[in-house]
């Protein structure tokens, strides 16, 4: 989960894996992904009990909104290959 100067820099990274070609996200989308409602309450007294539990659903909803619905992004198992 890194920041690169541009996509071609990530592709030249020594640890770049071909599968992660689908792992790019624009800076604006990233800021939105990590700026969902619960994130804005990290300093609230009830963050852990009230807001943190909402985080996973918010993340899924945001990823769906920006079209990143593959198992790679959603954290779901890959479909079996025949």
């Amino acid at each position, binding site marked *: *989960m*890194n*920041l690169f100067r541009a996509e071609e820099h990530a592709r030249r990274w020594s*640890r770049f894996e071909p599968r992660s070609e689908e792992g*790019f996200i624009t800076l604006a989308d990233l*800021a939105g992904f990590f700026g969902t409602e619960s994130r804005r309450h*990290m300093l609230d007294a009830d963050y*852990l009990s009230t807001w943190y539990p909402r985080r996973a659903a918010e993340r899924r909803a945001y990823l769906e909104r920006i079209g990143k619905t593959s*198992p790679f992004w959603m*954290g779901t198992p890959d479909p079996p290959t025949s």
Partner: protein
Amino acid sequence: MPDAQLMDRAFQRIMRSLVDTGRAPHYAELARALARPAEDGPALLHDVMQAYPIGWLHPETDYIASFPPLNSLPTQYRITVRGEQRWFAQCGFEATSVTWLFPGETVRIDAPCLDCGDPVTVEMRDGRITWADPPGVVGHLAFGFGASRGRSYYL
């Protein structure tokens, strides 16, 4: 089962310590801040880390290494606020969330590009990106989310 209110207080104490000083408290400091006996510190720490599993302790220690979005263990994602580079983000993605810990402040993220070592700089204020250099900065998820990917998700 740990008391939810106590867990909230422990979480806030750790996060507030990171925001104020750039480092996480030791469990002895955590216990004292919550008016608990020092001997309760380790269990308190482990309970709150279990409740917030996106953070972690340094292996084989009771030291908080990561408590996202901030890291007590330095990373390449350096955070500057009010001209002070005192903080580190857990990763490049979490770095974009640090802005929510410093309302009304400009939060600057500096990191070396892992390909070339040249700088990557992003400034944010209240969740808004106000500066990016170079303008084409991108995020990259190297291994995918989910335990089934088999690699640490934060890399």
